[in-house]
Protein backbone atom coordinates (compact mmCIF):
# COMPACT_ATOMS: atom_id res chain seq x y z
CA UNK A 1 0.00 0.00 0.00
CA UNK A 2 1.43 3.36 -0.94
CA UNK A 3 1.94 6.01 1.70
CA UNK A 4 -0.67 8.29 0.14
CA UNK A 5 -3.34 5.61 0.16
CA UNK A 6 -2.54 4.70 3.74
CA UNK A 7 -2.86 8.32 4.89
CA UNK A 8 -6.17 8.62 3.01
CA UNK A 9 -7.51 5.50 4.76
CA UNK A 10 -6.29 6.75 8.11
CA UNK A 11 -7.93 10.15 7.56
CA UNK A 12 -11.23 8.45 6.65
CA UNK A 13 -11.17 6.13 9.67
CA UNK A 14 -10.00 8.89 11.99
CA UNK A 15 -12.75 11.26 10.85
CA UNK A 16 -15.36 8.52 11.30
CA UNK A 17 -14.09 7.70 14.77
CA UNK A 18 -13.92 11.37 15.75
CA UNK A 19 -17.52 12.00 14.65
CA UNK A 20 -18.94 8.91 16.40
CA UNK A 21 -16.85 9.42 19.55
CA UNK A 22 -17.83 13.09 19.85
CA UNK A 23 -21.49 12.16 19.40
CA UNK A 24 -21.15 9.51 22.12
CA UNK A 25 -19.39 11.93 24.50
CA UNK A 26 -22.26 14.40 24.25
CA UNK A 27 -24.61 11.70 25.58
CA UNK A 28 -22.35 10.70 28.50
CA UNK A 29 -23.12 11.93 32.02
CA UNK A 30 -21.51 15.33 32.52
CA UNK A 31 -17.88 15.44 33.65
CA UNK A 32 -17.77 15.71 37.44
CA UNK A 33 -21.44 14.69 37.88
CA UNK A 34 -22.46 13.59 41.38
CA UNK A 35 -24.21 10.33 40.40
CA UNK A 36 -21.89 7.28 40.60
CA UNK A 37 -24.12 4.35 41.58
CA UNK A 38 -21.43 1.69 41.22
CA UNK A 39 -18.84 3.78 43.01
CA UNK A 40 -21.14 4.40 45.96
CA UNK A 41 -21.93 0.69 46.30
CA UNK A 42 -18.22 -0.16 46.08
CA UNK A 43 -17.40 2.33 48.86
CA UNK A 44 -20.21 0.89 50.97
CA UNK A 45 -18.97 -2.69 50.47
CA UNK A 46 -15.37 -1.72 51.23
CA UNK A 47 -16.35 -0.02 54.50
CA UNK A 48 -18.45 -3.04 55.49
CA UNK A 49 -15.31 -5.19 55.17
CA UNK A 50 -13.03 -2.68 56.96
CA UNK A 51 -10.83 -1.95 53.93
CA UNK A 52 -9.68 1.67 53.99
CA UNK A 53 -8.37 1.73 50.40
CA UNK A 54 -11.51 1.29 48.32
CA UNK A 55 -9.53 0.71 45.10
CA UNK A 56 -7.81 -2.27 46.76
CA UNK A 57 -11.17 -3.52 48.01
CA UNK A 58 -12.53 -3.40 44.45
CA UNK A 59 -9.48 -5.17 43.03
CA UNK A 60 -8.90 -7.84 45.66
CA UNK A 61 -12.36 -8.35 47.14
CA UNK A 62 -15.21 -7.42 44.81
CA UNK A 63 -13.32 -8.06 41.57
CA UNK A 64 -10.79 -10.57 42.95
CA UNK A 65 -11.58 -13.06 40.21
CA UNK A 66 -10.84 -10.46 37.51
CA UNK A 67 -7.54 -9.71 39.20
CA UNK A 68 -6.70 -13.40 38.93
CA UNK A 69 -7.19 -13.05 35.17
CA UNK A 70 -5.04 -9.92 35.13
CA UNK A 71 -2.33 -11.68 37.09
CA UNK A 72 -2.45 -14.60 34.67
CA UNK A 73 -2.02 -12.18 31.73
CA UNK A 74 1.14 -10.90 33.41
CA UNK A 75 2.32 -14.46 34.04
CA UNK A 76 1.67 -15.48 30.42
CA UNK A 77 3.37 -12.36 29.07
CA UNK A 78 6.49 -13.07 31.13
CA UNK A 79 6.48 -16.66 29.87
CA UNK A 80 6.15 -15.39 26.29
CA UNK A 81 9.02 -12.94 26.74
CA UNK A 82 11.26 -15.65 28.23
CA UNK A 83 10.56 -17.88 25.22
CA UNK A 84 11.04 -15.05 22.69
CA UNK A 85 14.29 -13.77 24.19
CA UNK A 86 16.10 -17.05 24.77
CA UNK A 87 19.56 -17.62 23.40
CA UNK A 88 19.24 -18.97 19.86
CA UNK A 89 21.48 -20.96 17.55
CA UNK A 90 24.44 -18.94 16.33
CA UNK A 91 24.51 -16.82 19.46
CA UNK A 92 26.80 -17.18 22.40
CA UNK A 93 27.08 -15.75 25.85
CA UNK A 94 29.93 -13.49 26.91
CA UNK A 95 30.85 -12.36 30.39
CA UNK A 96 30.35 -8.61 30.60
CA UNK A 97 33.44 -6.68 31.66
CA UNK A 98 33.24 -4.76 34.94
CA UNK A 99 33.06 -1.06 34.21
CA UNK A 100 33.99 1.95 36.31
CA UNK A 101 31.05 3.95 37.68
CA UNK A 102 31.33 7.59 38.74
CA UNK A 103 31.74 7.72 42.51
CA UNK A 104 28.73 9.95 43.29
CA UNK A 105 26.48 7.68 41.21
CA UNK A 106 27.81 4.63 43.02
CA UNK A 107 27.40 6.14 46.47
CA UNK A 108 23.91 7.47 45.79
CA UNK A 109 22.59 4.22 44.31
CA UNK A 110 24.05 2.11 47.15
CA UNK A 111 22.30 4.37 49.67
CA UNK A 112 19.09 4.20 47.68
CA UNK A 113 18.92 0.38 47.31
CA UNK A 114 17.71 -0.33 50.88
CA UNK A 115 15.52 2.80 50.92
CA UNK A 116 13.80 1.84 47.68
CA UNK A 117 13.43 -1.80 48.77
CA UNK A 118 11.83 -0.75 52.04
CA UNK A 119 9.53 1.70 50.24
CA UNK A 120 8.40 -1.07 47.90
CA UNK A 121 7.67 -3.48 50.74
CA UNK A 122 5.84 -0.70 52.61
CA UNK A 123 3.65 0.01 49.58
CA UNK A 124 2.80 -3.73 49.29
CA UNK A 125 2.08 -4.12 53.01
CA UNK A 126 -0.14 -1.01 53.19
CA UNK A 127 -2.08 -1.73 50.01
CA UNK A 128 -5.33 -2.15 51.94
CA UNK A 129 -4.85 1.16 53.79
CA UNK A 130 -3.23 3.76 51.57
CA UNK A 131 -2.72 4.25 47.82
CA UNK A 132 -0.63 1.44 46.40
CA UNK A 133 -0.74 -2.32 46.68
CA UNK A 134 0.84 -5.43 45.24
CA UNK A 135 1.16 -4.22 41.65
CA UNK A 136 2.71 -0.85 42.47
CA UNK A 137 4.91 -2.05 45.33
CA UNK A 138 6.11 -5.07 43.36
CA UNK A 139 7.38 -2.82 40.58
CA UNK A 140 9.18 -0.61 43.14
CA UNK A 141 10.89 -3.65 44.73
CA UNK A 142 12.00 -4.99 41.35
CA UNK A 143 13.37 -1.62 40.24
CA UNK A 144 15.18 -1.18 43.56
CA UNK A 145 17.29 -4.28 42.84
CA UNK A 146 18.30 -2.83 39.48
CA UNK A 147 19.84 0.20 41.17
CA UNK A 148 22.80 -2.14 41.73
CA UNK A 149 23.24 -2.41 37.96
CA UNK A 150 23.39 1.38 37.68
CA UNK A 151 25.57 1.83 40.77
CA UNK A 152 27.99 -1.09 40.57
CA UNK A 153 27.87 -3.32 37.49
CA UNK A 154 26.08 -6.20 35.84
CA UNK A 155 27.91 -8.90 37.80
CA UNK A 156 26.85 -7.38 41.12
CA UNK A 157 23.27 -7.44 39.92
CA UNK A 158 23.58 -11.08 38.87
CA UNK A 159 24.87 -12.08 42.29
CA UNK A 160 21.72 -10.89 44.06
CA UNK A 161 19.46 -11.92 41.22
CA UNK A 162 19.54 -15.64 40.48
CA UNK A 163 16.92 -15.56 37.71
CA UNK A 164 15.87 -19.16 38.37
CA UNK A 165 14.81 -18.27 41.90
CA UNK A 166 12.73 -15.36 40.69
CA UNK A 167 11.05 -17.54 38.08
CA UNK A 168 10.00 -19.87 40.90
CA UNK A 169 8.86 -16.85 42.94
CA UNK A 170 6.74 -15.66 40.01
CA UNK A 171 4.97 -19.02 39.83
CA UNK A 172 4.67 -19.19 43.63
CA UNK A 173 2.97 -15.78 43.73
CA UNK A 174 0.45 -16.90 41.13
CA UNK A 175 -0.07 -20.19 42.99
CA UNK A 176 -0.54 -18.41 46.34
CA UNK A 177 -3.35 -16.35 44.82
CA UNK A 178 -5.07 -19.51 43.56
CA UNK A 179 -4.60 -21.29 46.91
CA UNK A 180 -6.13 -18.30 48.75
CA UNK A 181 -9.05 -18.47 46.34
CA UNK A 182 -9.47 -22.20 46.86
CA UNK A 183 -9.29 -21.66 50.64
CA UNK A 184 -12.48 -19.59 50.33
CA UNK A 185 -14.05 -22.54 48.54
CA UNK A 186 -12.99 -24.99 51.26
CA UNK A 187 -14.23 -22.57 53.93
CA UNK A 188 -17.76 -23.19 52.70
CA UNK A 189 -18.06 -20.04 50.58
CA UNK A 190 -17.28 -19.11 46.97
CA UNK A 191 -13.94 -19.04 45.12
CA UNK A 192 -11.93 -15.95 46.24
CA UNK A 193 -14.81 -14.80 48.47
CA UNK A 194 -13.51 -12.63 51.31
CA UNK A 195 -15.39 -14.42 54.10
CA UNK A 196 -12.67 -16.56 55.61
CA UNK A 197 -10.71 -14.22 57.88
CA UNK A 198 -11.95 -11.68 60.44
CA UNK A 199 -12.13 -8.17 58.98
CA UNK A 200 -10.06 -6.68 61.80
CA UNK A 201 -9.92 -3.11 63.08
CA UNK A 202 -10.51 -0.44 60.42
CA UNK A 203 -7.32 1.32 59.22
CA UNK A 204 -4.82 -1.16 60.69
CA UNK A 205 -2.56 -3.52 58.71
CA UNK A 206 -4.39 -6.78 59.52
CA UNK A 207 -7.75 -5.38 58.33
CA UNK A 208 -9.78 -6.28 55.27
CA UNK A 209 -9.84 -10.07 55.58
CA UNK A 210 -7.95 -11.70 52.70
CA UNK A 211 -7.17 -8.39 50.95
CA UNK A 212 -3.66 -7.99 52.52
CA UNK A 213 -2.79 -11.62 51.77
CA UNK A 214 -3.87 -11.36 48.13
CA UNK A 215 -1.93 -8.08 47.95
CA UNK A 216 1.20 -9.85 49.20
CA UNK A 217 0.77 -12.68 46.68
CA UNK A 218 0.41 -10.15 43.85
CA UNK A 219 3.36 -8.14 45.17
CA UNK A 220 5.56 -11.23 45.11
CA UNK A 221 4.43 -12.19 41.62
CA UNK A 222 4.84 -8.72 40.15
CA UNK A 223 8.28 -8.16 41.73
CA UNK A 224 9.55 -11.52 40.44
CA UNK A 225 7.91 -11.05 37.04
CA UNK A 226 9.50 -7.63 36.50
CA UNK A 227 12.91 -8.96 37.60
CA UNK A 228 12.64 -11.88 35.14
CA UNK A 229 11.44 -9.58 32.33
CA UNK A 230 14.26 -7.07 32.85
CA UNK A 231 16.79 -9.90 33.18
CA UNK A 232 15.82 -11.23 29.74
CA UNK A 233 16.10 -7.81 28.12
CA UNK A 234 19.41 -7.06 29.90
CA UNK A 235 20.78 -10.45 28.78
CA UNK A 236 20.05 -9.48 25.18
CA UNK A 237 21.76 -6.13 25.63
CA UNK A 238 24.75 -7.20 27.72
CA UNK A 239 25.50 -10.91 27.53
CA UNK A 240 24.24 -12.48 24.32
CA UNK A 241 26.20 -11.66 21.16
CA UNK A 242 25.96 -12.83 17.59
CA UNK A 243 28.38 -15.74 17.20
CA UNK A 244 29.41 -14.86 13.66
CA UNK A 245 29.90 -11.19 14.43
CA UNK A 246 33.11 -11.76 16.40
Amino acid sequence: MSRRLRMLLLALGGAGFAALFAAACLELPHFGAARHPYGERAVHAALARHTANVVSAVNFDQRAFDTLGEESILFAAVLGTVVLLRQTRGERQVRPEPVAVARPVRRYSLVMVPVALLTGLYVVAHGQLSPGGGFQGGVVVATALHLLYIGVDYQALERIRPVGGYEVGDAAGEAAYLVLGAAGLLGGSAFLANTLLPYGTFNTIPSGGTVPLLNAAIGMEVACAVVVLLARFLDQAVEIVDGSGE
Partner: protein
Amino acid sequence: MSVLPYLAAGWMFLAGCYGLATSRHLVHAVGCLAVCQSSTYVLLLAVGYRTGGTAPVFSDVRPGSRPLVDPVVQALTLTDVVVGATVTALLLALVVQVAKRHGTVDPDELSELRG
Protein backbone atom coordinates in the same frame (compact mmCIF):
# COMPACT_ATOMS: atom_id res chain seq x y z
CA MET B 1 -17.17 22.57 28.64
CA SER B 2 -18.17 19.42 30.47
CA VAL B 3 -17.25 17.06 27.60
CA LEU B 4 -13.71 18.37 27.10
CA PRO B 5 -11.95 15.60 29.17
CA TYR B 6 -13.74 12.90 27.15
CA LEU B 7 -12.78 14.58 23.88
CA ALA B 8 -9.16 14.83 25.10
CA ALA B 9 -9.13 11.04 25.47
CA GLY B 10 -10.42 10.64 21.91
CA TRP B 11 -7.80 13.07 20.64
CA MET B 12 -5.03 11.08 22.39
CA PHE B 13 -6.30 7.89 20.78
CA LEU B 14 -6.26 9.47 17.32
CA ALA B 15 -2.76 10.88 17.90
CA GLY B 16 -1.56 7.37 18.80
CA CYS B 17 -3.24 5.91 15.70
CA TYR B 18 -1.61 8.54 13.47
CA GLY B 19 1.78 7.64 14.96
CA LEU B 20 1.16 3.92 14.41
CA ALA B 21 0.22 4.40 10.77
CA THR B 22 3.14 6.67 9.93
CA SER B 23 5.76 4.94 12.08
CA ARG B 24 9.16 4.22 10.55
CA HIS B 25 10.60 2.41 13.57
CA LEU B 26 9.05 -0.51 15.46
CA VAL B 27 10.02 0.81 18.90
CA HIS B 28 8.32 4.07 17.96
CA ALA B 29 5.24 2.05 16.93
CA VAL B 30 5.17 0.33 20.34
CA GLY B 31 5.39 3.77 21.97
CA CYS B 32 2.43 4.95 19.85
CA LEU B 33 0.40 1.94 20.96
CA ALA B 34 1.15 2.96 24.55
CA VAL B 35 -0.26 6.43 23.72
CA CYS B 36 -3.45 4.78 22.41
CA GLN B 37 -3.70 2.79 25.66
CA SER B 38 -3.14 5.92 27.74
CA SER B 39 -6.23 7.47 26.15
CA THR B 40 -8.32 4.76 27.82
CA TYR B 41 -6.87 5.72 31.23
CA VAL B 42 -7.90 9.33 30.65
CA LEU B 43 -11.40 8.29 29.53
CA LEU B 44 -11.92 5.96 32.51
CA LEU B 45 -10.71 8.49 35.07
CA ALA B 46 -12.79 11.24 33.44
CA VAL B 47 -15.91 9.08 33.68
CA GLY B 48 -15.28 8.51 37.39
CA TYR B 49 -14.53 12.12 38.34
CA ARG B 50 -16.82 13.97 40.69
CA THR B 51 -16.53 17.73 41.26
CA GLY B 52 -14.74 18.40 44.54
CA GLY B 53 -14.13 14.69 45.08
CA THR B 54 -11.09 13.28 46.83
CA ALA B 55 -9.27 9.94 46.49
CA PRO B 56 -11.38 6.92 47.58
CA VAL B 57 -8.96 6.07 50.39
CA PHE B 58 -10.00 6.37 54.04
CA SER B 59 -6.59 6.23 55.72
CA ASP B 60 -6.88 9.96 56.53
CA VAL B 61 -10.44 10.87 55.49
CA ARG B 62 -13.40 10.16 57.74
CA PRO B 63 -15.99 8.05 55.85
CA GLY B 64 -18.86 10.21 54.63
CA SER B 65 -17.12 13.54 55.34
CA ARG B 66 -16.24 14.35 51.70
CA PRO B 67 -17.43 13.29 48.24
CA LEU B 68 -15.26 10.62 46.60
CA VAL B 69 -14.34 9.99 43.00
CA ASP B 70 -15.51 6.64 41.61
CA PRO B 71 -13.21 3.81 42.86
CA VAL B 72 -14.52 1.27 40.34
CA VAL B 73 -13.04 3.04 37.31
CA GLN B 74 -9.79 3.61 39.21
CA ALA B 75 -9.50 -0.14 39.79
CA LEU B 76 -10.24 -0.70 36.08
CA THR B 77 -7.49 1.80 35.21
CA LEU B 78 -5.04 -0.16 37.37
CA THR B 79 -5.92 -3.33 35.44
CA ASP B 80 -5.52 -1.36 32.22
CA VAL B 81 -2.05 -0.12 33.22
CA VAL B 82 -0.86 -3.63 34.13
CA VAL B 83 -2.13 -5.15 30.88
CA GLY B 84 -0.64 -2.24 28.93
CA ALA B 85 2.78 -2.80 30.53
CA THR B 86 2.77 -6.54 29.77
CA VAL B 87 1.70 -5.96 26.15
CA THR B 88 4.51 -3.42 25.75
CA ALA B 89 7.06 -5.88 27.17
CA LEU B 90 5.92 -8.66 24.87
CA LEU B 91 5.94 -6.40 21.80
CA LEU B 92 9.43 -5.10 22.61
CA ALA B 93 10.64 -8.71 22.86
CA LEU B 94 9.18 -9.31 19.40
CA VAL B 95 10.94 -6.18 18.11
CA VAL B 96 14.28 -7.52 19.42
CA GLN B 97 13.73 -10.74 17.47
CA VAL B 98 12.59 -8.92 14.31
CA ALA B 99 15.69 -6.74 14.42
CA LYS B 100 17.88 -9.86 14.70
CA ARG B 101 16.16 -11.88 11.98
CA HIS B 102 15.58 -9.17 9.39
CA GLY B 103 18.25 -6.63 10.23
CA THR B 104 15.74 -3.79 10.07
CA VAL B 105 13.14 -2.22 12.34
CA ASP B 106 11.38 -0.19 9.65
CA PRO B 107 7.88 -1.67 9.26
CA ASP B 108 7.81 -0.67 5.56
CA GLU B 109 10.87 -2.81 4.82
CA LEU B 110 9.42 -5.89 6.53
CA SER B 111 6.94 -6.66 3.76
CA GLU B 112 8.87 -9.39 1.96
CA LEU B 113 8.31 -13.01 2.95
CA ARG B 114 11.25 -15.07 4.14
CA GLY B 115 11.94 -18.70 4.80
